[in-house]
């Protein structure tokens, strides 16, 4: 995860450098009195590189995806809770007819 952060910071620095280059380019255009049609090609390449670095950081830094299926390996139940009074089990006994007379409860 430290690598992800470093890549994100590098991407952000690349974007900041591209912004600074664009500011200088605009001041140059003010001197020669031309219109701003788009940043120079080096800045565009820098922006694409910064975008890819930040995309990589955005996908790796927040953490891994965890499987939601109950039958995958890391979702297996390997322990029972310690409060034995409240354990409920879902077993096939519910298809048997109830033998207890509920009125007596």
């Amino acid at each position, binding site marked *: 995860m430290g690598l992800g952060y470093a890549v994100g910071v590098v*991407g952000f620095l690349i974007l900041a450098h591209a*912004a600074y280059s664009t500011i200088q380019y605009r001041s140059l255009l003010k001197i020669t009195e031309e219109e*701003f049609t788009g*940043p120079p090609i080096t800045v565009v390449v820098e*922006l694409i590189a910064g975008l890819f670095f930040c*995309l990589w950081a*955005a996908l790796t830094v927040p953490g891994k995806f*965890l499987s939601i299926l109950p039958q995958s390996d890391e979702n297996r139940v390997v322990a029972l809770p310690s409060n034995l009074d409240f354990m409920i*089990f879902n077993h096939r006994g*519910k298809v048997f007819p109830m033998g207890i007379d509920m009125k007596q409860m």
Partner: protein
Amino acid sequence: MAVHDDSNGQKKKSSDALDEIPTFNVENMQNNTRIINYSRTFMSIIGGVIAGILGYTALTGFIFYFVIMAITTVGLAAKTGFAVHSFFDSWNQIVFDGILGGLLSFVLFWTFAYDMVHIF
């Protein structure tokens, strides 16, 4: 009478053995949704900064935002290894979740970067 929940640490949604409602590990599903939101928000911010630097105005900028979101969607799908159903409920989550929320962050950073680079 009919019992539904497993009271173990990972609360599962209820499943009836006769009905085949699929169960999911809710904790992990929340974790995955949180990861998508973080990734999309960060990419919205980065997209806003790039749109400002490039000098996009009006419609071009919004189109650029949806392009960035499409790239993020492909990236997220690649992060699952393209086996989306073992991590999410449906495709809708990975494609549409967080897009409108990210739009506001995008516009904020877009105007901020545009001001910094082109006006100030």
